[in-house]
């Protein structure tokens, strides 16, 4: 559809039509840039769908090894309870990692908020939180495995640090978006700064904070399932062992357990988040 600035448009509408067509030009340029970027990184990402076709026999064999009808006969009952126990350990890692992160993200989040703290506290705190976010949980886990030894505690600490960085940022964004009039109402009664935060700010941001914390818990369960691969405890450790020894039926049991557990926790946390708002 062309938008001609024909006779019937008022000057104001003509300007708006011009702005409108310029917007469409920008949108088109944006799409072109995206396509260019995809082409540019095609080789680097090693995209070669032919490989999927050439290796089809291999893939079919692999898939056949994972088929449920197979693994049910292979896996003993005792092993099932062992894997479920490992999954539970993963969830426990996520619970404590998230809990410690929430505890720290509350003060750090407030210290990152320009409407609460002065710039000379905000800027350094933000940079530290940026660093915590920039470093992946896996990297932290590798470090903590060396520091505190193999096992779930390394995973808990890794999740704790990375999640603190994420939650502090999300928490402070919520704090910066509050309505200031209630806070001033609290201040006018002669309250202290801490009371202003507890009575004026926290009630306003609570639904968002709860929702963010639960969402991070969901993500942390998924992350904790992977952390085991570097020796930081949980079901990932077991899964990696089985995959490395080409024990696909068992590996598929473990993956099914992960899928079921993660889906259940996602559903539960979604329910809780709805409840919190």
């Amino acid at each position, binding site marked *: 559809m062309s938008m001609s600035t024909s006779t019937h448009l008022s000057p104001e509408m003509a300007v708006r039509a011009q702005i409108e067509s310029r917007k469409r030009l920008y949108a088109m340029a944006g799409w072109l840039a995206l396509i260019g970027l995809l082409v540019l990184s095609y080789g680097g990402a090693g995209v070669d769908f032919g490989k999927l076709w050439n290796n089809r026999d291999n893939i079919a064999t692999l898939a056949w090894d994972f088929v449920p009808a197979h693994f049910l006969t292979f896996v003993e009952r005792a092993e099932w309870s062992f894997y479920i126990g490992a999954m539970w350990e993963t969830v426990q890692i996520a619970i404590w990692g998230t809990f410690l992160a929430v505890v720290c993200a509350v003060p750090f989040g407030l210290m990152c908020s320009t409407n609460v703290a002065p710039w000379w506290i905000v800027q350094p705190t933000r940079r530290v939180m940026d660093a915590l976010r920039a470093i992946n949980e896996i990297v932290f886990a590798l470090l903590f495995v060396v520091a505190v030894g193999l096992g779930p505690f390394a995973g808990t600490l890794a999740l704790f640090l990375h999640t603190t960085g994420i939650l502090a940022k999300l928490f402070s964004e919520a704090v910066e978006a509050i309505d200031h009039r209630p806070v001033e109402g609290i201040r*006018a009664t*002669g309250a202290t700064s*801490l009371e202003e935060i507890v009575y004026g700010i926290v009630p306003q941001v609570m639904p968002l904070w709860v929702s963010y914390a639960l969402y991070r818990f969901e993500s942390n369960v998924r992350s904790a399932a992977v952390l085991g691969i570097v020796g930081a405890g949980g079901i990932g450790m077991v899964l990696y062992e089985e995959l490395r020894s080409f024990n696909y039926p068992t590996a598929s049991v473990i993956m099914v357990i992960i899928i079921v557990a993660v889906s259940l926790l996602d559903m539960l946390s979604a329910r809780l988040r709805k409840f919190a708002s």
Partner: protein
Amino acid sequence: MTAAIEVRGLTKTFGGGRKALDGVDLVVAPGEMVALIGASGSGKSTLMRHIGGLVAGDRHATASGTITVNGHAVQASGRMARDIRTIRGGIGFVFQQFGLVNRMSVLTNTLVGALGRLPQWRTLLRWFPRHDVDLAFSALARVGVADWAFERAGDLSGGQQQRVAIARALVQKAPVLMADEPIASLDPASSRNVMEILQRINAEDRITVLVTLHQVDYAVKYCPRTVALRKGRVVYDGPSAALTPQLLSELYAGDKEAVAALWGTSLEEDADSLEAKLAAGLS
């Protein structure tokens, strides 16, 4: 007797050099109920926020304003008093937009009035003494919203929320109550109700009330004394009853809109009758 509110030579300059307050002097005796009127932008809210210790005045040596409330210095020469939090505790403040925390219960919002005099370890645990809870309930009953004590403040109507804000000031036991445009966001019935409550606590508790209004008729009806501001200066300070359309148009000469707004909504809606009324007043 010390004045309830004493403002001397207060000046406030905002960015761009615009003077929001220009050498304001104001003395309010204990137990008075005074209206502060003026068109929007005349500086009445700015003055209120200075008296309440929420903003500091200019620091220029030439314009060193002082504010004293209940005999305690709130600020002098643009510097807040060191114990400003204690002093704020003695000044109740009611805002146009109520200043309540929507997601907290009406009761907790009311109890916030006690924060200034309670130890912090108690308030951070939200563990209020029994007699303060009783006081909050009786304050809510006085303003007629006790039945809503356990509702969220945000679920109440504007008029009810403003009454909760007044209950909070009552729990504060402040001898001075500043009400900044308390009825500007309310319908006429709620406005009268809120003004009557202010009048009642002024008469019964001898609480000094300074209330900003943007309509003269409310000032005339509820406050014996009115102070009028124009462009940051006090242009009238005297009995409200003396405020006639004629006097107003003299005070706000050359600003017909200000006169229209101050003289009431009925005129605002009908420009012709404003002209008629002004003509009648002038003839």
